[in-house]
């Protein structure tokens, strides 16, 4: 343990499933409240009050779902890779659980980003799908998610499954910049920038403020969903521990 002195105390508390269960239990209602307020407020704002884009008209409102889900899909993968590294290095069970719980949420965000993008593409580009760099790398990200989920579900033993997914997540994260870079280069090489995504335009504040609200709302939603799944996972894995027994008896 001598070599772990430099790590702060809370890091080791994190390793305790019981402590995590309790702390997430206390945080969960607040995050849920924040999620509901931010998402409801953001949706109303973006649908009713944000101005329409002068070029794209009202289809522009899809951005308020599209961008948060795309950002979240990428962040969730980073989180998984970090959790995987921690799980492999310090053999921390909680990190394994985070990795496993984050995967389906991240995958559903990637699906949402792809679906909203595709829907948006139809009115703007006249086609559901275009082999653009951003789109392609999002699709590959979805494949990476699906791979991790499939591997996780194919291995019966929990800790083996967690470690195998961690290795895969790490290999994937090494590859993400390579994939992004290669895909971008490939596209600019083959195809002139006919359909280039509008690089962050100088949006007026009443356009990007609701976007900010939505992004924060999505992060809160991610936290809520992650904590819910995490708590389930904790109960399942610790089902033999006495504190879970007491917890079950209390309810």
């Amino acid at each position, binding site marked *: 343990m001598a070599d772990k002195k430099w790590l702060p105390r809370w890091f080791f508390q994190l390793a305790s499933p019981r402590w995590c269960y309790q702390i997430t239990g206390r945080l969960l209602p607040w995050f849920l409240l924040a999620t509901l307020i931010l*998402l409801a407020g953001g*949706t109303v704002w973006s*649908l*009713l*009050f*944000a*101005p*329409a884009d002068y070029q794209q*008209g*009202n*289809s522009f*409102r*899809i951005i308020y*779902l*599209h961008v948060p*889900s795309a950002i979240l899909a990428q962040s969730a993968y980073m989180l998984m890779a970090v959790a995987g590294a921690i799980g492999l290095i310090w053999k921390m069970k909680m990190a394994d659980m985070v990795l496993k719980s984050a995967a*389906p*949420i991240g995958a*559903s*965000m990637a*699906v*949402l980003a792809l*679906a*909203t993008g595709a*829907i*948006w593409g*139809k*009115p703007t580009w006249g086609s559901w799908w275009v082999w653009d760099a951003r789109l392609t790398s999002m699709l590959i990200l979805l494949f990476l998610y699906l791979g991790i989920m499939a591997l996780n579900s194919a291995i019966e033993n929990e800790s083996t499954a967690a470690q195998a997914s961690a290795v895969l997540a790490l290999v994937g994260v090494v590859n993400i910049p390579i994939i992004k870079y290669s895909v971008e280069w490939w596209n600019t090489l083959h195809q002139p920038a006919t359909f280039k995504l509008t690089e962050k335009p100088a949006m007026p504040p009443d356009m990007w403020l609701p976007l900010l609200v939505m992004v924060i709302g999505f992060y809160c*939603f991610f936290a*809520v*969903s992650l904590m*819910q*799944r995490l*708590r*389930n996972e904790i*109960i*399942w894995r610790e*089902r033999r521990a006495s504190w*879970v*027994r007491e917890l*079950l*008896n209390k*309810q």
Partner: protein
Amino acid sequence: MSFNSVSEFLAMGGHGLYVWLSYGLGAGVIVANLILPKLSRNRLLAEQKRRLRREETA
């Protein structure tokens, strides 16, 4: 407020289908992500309680 009437709001300047499809999908994904863990939690707790009871009697 960018819209003058409900029908205008629903039409979204001709892009109603796309916008509402997106928001519907978004709502679906988010709600599913909140509800499914809740359901599986209920199932898990019931299962474990049953197991505890079984072990107590055994």
